């Protein structure tokens, strides 16, 4: 069939009609009998009816499917409005009034009557209701207000009243929502509850609410009609009586059939004030009252009850408390169990405010005789958490983000009509509920808490994407050197490094020994290090600083969120040289340790270097600033000086001390990419400290040993030697050497403090631990090699000294 576009009003109206005709309750086929009756009620000539049936395709199919039915209805409307029957006109005609059906019998039926009865019998309910049931006083008949005064209770009738004012007044029963018999208990309940205040429901043509409102008004009226509820025996046969009502209540007849059993319905509706109906008719059928909708009064009552159990409106009511509470309603446990199943939306064993209201509402309904639906009606669904309010949905259970989309509520028991009605009005009605819910959910503290957690304390260290820092020791060294430089003395122009010069300087200063005074000369290295000062460095620097600052300085801002600094360090390759430079920064050390140095680079031609440096060292013994040679020379010297050669801590200290001096070397190393070795060598030492740094330090110390009392001479690695050679260019090496020892000492001292920042990032720590271990093994190996070399060097040295001695006498001679 051609696609049919229906407006909302039409949609609802047709749906109701379909339900009405769906006597078999198959939801698919409208029984021909009913349909034909309906068509006849449209008061169209039979030929037209035949034509319509042909057009809609029913004759083809042999039955009225939903689409066929809708098309037929539309055609009826077209015909009724006098337009020629054309298929094309289905979609082209705009603002087509709803098809009107003169319902003589059961149309308005009980709906209205029921409503009335409802109101009448309201008294019954209260009686039956336990304290639990709040019969909203407003609901009582007393509200018989004039239609005009009827406030729209549930925004059921979203439909513009304009939709079909005319047909309504004219057609007694606009909506064949007949199925009064089929109307679910919900209707009944609806009535009950709304009977009072709800009556105000706009007289939507189809909306039961309309009926109710009518009722209200009519209450004053005869209402008597048929035995209102009290009779509770709405003779379904009493269509006549109903008919009369319809006459009175022109439109309102649309009240969706009330329960067949809803005896009540039958009578009441009748008298629905026609006047009221007229007004209400404005509403349109589409706005079906949602029988499950919670009115404001009810809601308020529920909320109050909730408060008695759980003062915090955003909290939960535990299952046991809820059980006691609802047991008071004296409903059978089985039903309470079912209610619980329906209302505990997130299945967490506790009720949120929304869930509680839904459960309460169901209890009230049940007590009033409504059958429980199989599924939770949409209007009772807990509102979704307003995701906009918070980044995450802390609200664990509740409001499970349940989209407000009209869920197909198809309670097997209740007729489809109400569900249909619910679907539409749901969207409108629920809005308020949803809004309320969202408010509630959004206000949950958890949301805010969560947010606060997320926000990093230190923007700098905030989720800084851990920039992978090249592990090349050179860079790291450079960084360190930079830091030290800046820290110690001048603010090195290298901007990147100087990102936090003050901090660095502070950090650097901490370890007393970290005096890079001599490092000044190493400015060259720093300048070269500028190149290193890539974005990463400053970033890492920042990170480390943030991490370090709290530790060593305790002057800087509060410790940044633990994880922050770690990322930079936890990375195996990232060497937070900053820390090491800070020397005192134990954290740095830890960080550094976390930094796993790449596997030790195979020692470069150490022998050459070592020998050279040694000689150079000798020669330059006086000329300390012998650069690399000196350094190397010094290293051997240092070596013997270092009794605790294998003392890793010393290495670290050494490294620390070396840092300053090694900075220049580092530069070279980094350039040469030899830093790797250095780090490796120092690895074992510095599991805590930045390996690279240690290496550098060591190397630098070695290099700069020249005469300097490099604390730990042993070239951690051949690389160191190389570094030393590079250091040859650095005159200040010697000085560094001295400082290195100091640094090393300081480093050692600071070591203990390392672990602190790691606490946070366990994973990072573990990873870094792993890396460190690996580095350790590598470095241990290197260490042994280096020691071997050291011994060789010592031998050489001794031999050289001997030679010197031998030479001297000659010279003197």
């Amino acid at each position, binding site marked *: 069939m051609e696609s049919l576009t229906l407006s909302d009003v039409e949609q609802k109206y047709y749906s109701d009609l379909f339900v009405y005709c769906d006597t078999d309750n198959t939801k698919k086929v409208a029984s021909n009998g009913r349909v034909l009756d309906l068509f006849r009620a449209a008061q169209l000539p039979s030929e037209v009816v035949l034509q319509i049936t042909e057009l809609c395709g029913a004759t083809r199919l042999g039955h009225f499917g939903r689409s066929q039915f809708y098309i037929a209805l539309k055609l009826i409307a077209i015909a009724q409005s006098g337009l020629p029957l054309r298929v094309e006109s289905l979609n082209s005609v705009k603002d087509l009034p709803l098809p009107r059906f003169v319902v003589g019998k059961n149309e308005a039926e009980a709906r209205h009557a029921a409503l009335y009865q409802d109101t009448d019998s309201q008294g019954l309910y209260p009686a039956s209701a336990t304290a639990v049931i709040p019969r909203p006083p407003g609901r009582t008949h007393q509200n018989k207000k004039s239609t005009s005064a009827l406030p729209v209770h549930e925004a059921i009738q979203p439909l513009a009243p304009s939709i079909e004012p005319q047909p309504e007044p004219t057609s007694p029963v606009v909506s064949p929502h007949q199925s009064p018999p089929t109307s679910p208990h919900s209707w009944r309940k609806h009535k009950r509850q709304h009977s009072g205040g709800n009556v105000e429901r706009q007289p939507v043509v189809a909306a039961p609410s309309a009926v109710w409102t009518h009722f209200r008004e009519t209450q004053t009226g005869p209402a008597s009609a048929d035995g209102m509820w009290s009779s509770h025996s709405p003779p379904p046969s009493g269509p006549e009586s109903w008919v009369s009502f319809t006459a009175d209540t022109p439109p309102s007849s649309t009240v969706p059939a009330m329960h067949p059993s809803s005896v009540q319905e039958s009578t009441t509706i009748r008298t629905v004030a026609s006047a009221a109906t007229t007004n209400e008719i404005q509403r349109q059928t589409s706005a079906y009252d949602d029988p499950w909708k919670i009115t404001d009064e009810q809601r308020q009552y529920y909320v109050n009850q909730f408060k008695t159990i759980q003062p915090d409106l955003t909290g939960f009511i535990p299952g046991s408390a809820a*059980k006691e509470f609802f047991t008071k309603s004296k409903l059978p446990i089985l039903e309470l169990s079912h209610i619980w199943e329906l209302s505990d939306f997130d299945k967490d064993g506790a009720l949120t405010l929304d869930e509680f209201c839904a459960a309460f509402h169901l209890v009230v309904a049940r007590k009033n005789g409504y059958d429980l639906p199989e599924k939770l009606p949409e209007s009772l669904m807990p509102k979704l958490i307003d995701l906009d309010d918070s980044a995450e949905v802390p609200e664990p259970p509740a409001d499970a983000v349940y989209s407000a989309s009209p869920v197909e509520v198809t309670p097997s028991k209740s007729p489809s009509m109400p569900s249909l009605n619910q679907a539409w009005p749901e969207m409108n009605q629920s809005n308020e509920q949803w809004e309320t819910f969202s408010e509630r959910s959004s206000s949950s503290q958890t949301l805010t808490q969560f947010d606060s957690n997320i926000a990093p304390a230190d923007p700098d260290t905030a989720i800084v994407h851990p920039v992978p820092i090249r592990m090349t020791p050179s860079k790291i060294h450079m960084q360190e050197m930079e830091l030290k430089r800046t820290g110690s003395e001048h603010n090195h122009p290298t901007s990147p490094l100087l990102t936090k010069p003050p901090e660095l300087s502070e950090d650097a200063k901490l370890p007393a020994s970290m005096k890079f005074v001599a490092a000044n000369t190493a400015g060259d290295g720093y300048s070269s290090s500028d190149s290193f000062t890539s974005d990463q460095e400053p970033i890492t620097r920042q990170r480390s600083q943030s991490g370090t600052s709290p530790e060593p300085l305790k002057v800087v801002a509060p410790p940044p969120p633990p994880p922050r600094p770690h990322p930079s360090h936890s990375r195996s390759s990232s060497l937070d040289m900053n820390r090491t430079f800070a020397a005192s920064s134990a954290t740095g050390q830890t960080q550094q340790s976390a930094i796993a140095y790449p596997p030790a680079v195979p020692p470069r031609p150490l022998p050459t270097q070592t020998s050279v440096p040694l000689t150079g060292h000798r020669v330059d013994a006086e000329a300390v600033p012998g650069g690399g040679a000196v350094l190397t020379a010094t290293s051997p010297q240092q070596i013997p000086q270092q009794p605790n050669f294998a003392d890793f801590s010393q290495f670290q200290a050494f490294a620390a001390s070396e840092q300053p001096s090694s900075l220049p070397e580092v530069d070279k190393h980094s350039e040469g990419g030899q830093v790797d070795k250095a780090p490796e060598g120092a690895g074992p030492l510095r599991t805590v400290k930045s390996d690279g740094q240690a290496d550098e330090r060591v190397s630098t110390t070695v290099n700069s040993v020249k005469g300097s009392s490099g604390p730990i001479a042993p070239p951690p690695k051949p690389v160191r030697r190389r570094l030393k050679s590079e250091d040859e260019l650095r005159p200040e090496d010697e000085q560094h050497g001295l400082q290195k020892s100091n640094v090393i000492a300081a480093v050692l001292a600071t070591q203990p403090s390392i672990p602190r920042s790691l606490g946070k990032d366990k994973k990072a720590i573990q990873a870094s631990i792993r890396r460190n271990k690996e580095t350790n093994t590598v470095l241990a190996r290197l260490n042994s090699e280096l020691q071997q070399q050291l011994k060789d060097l010592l031998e050489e040295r001794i031999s050289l000294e001997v030679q010197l001695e031998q030479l001297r006498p000659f010279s003197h001679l």
Partner: protein
Amino acid sequence: MAVCIAVIAKENYPLYIRSVPTQNELKFHYTVHTSLDVVEEKISAVGKSLGDQRELYLGLLYPTEDYKVYGYVTNSKVKFVIVVDSSNTSLRDNEIRSMFRKLHNSFTDVMCNPFHNPGDPIQSKAFDGIVSGMMTQTG
């Protein structure tokens, strides 16, 4: 397609048993009852050795010419038994597992209901719905 689904309590009395009504229900009751022995045997065999790390899904308990019986036991010794028709295209193990998982989940939901007393027969409509779904569709 499962022809019979049963939930047995810890004390080995049925909390819920439902069969496709076409067959002789009593026969399934008997089958489930006999399967309990197999379940017990599996529990005791594995339980002690592995401690409490016992697999919940017990797998095929025993096949007969007409059907197969699968078992699943929770940590609280509540047993689920599914009887499937052998004539069906043999359901994959995964499907059976997913069936048990669904059963377990809905059973948990039932238990969460404060109005349900553990040990009472399960009268939850939601649970019934799940079970019906499993019995009508394939597995």
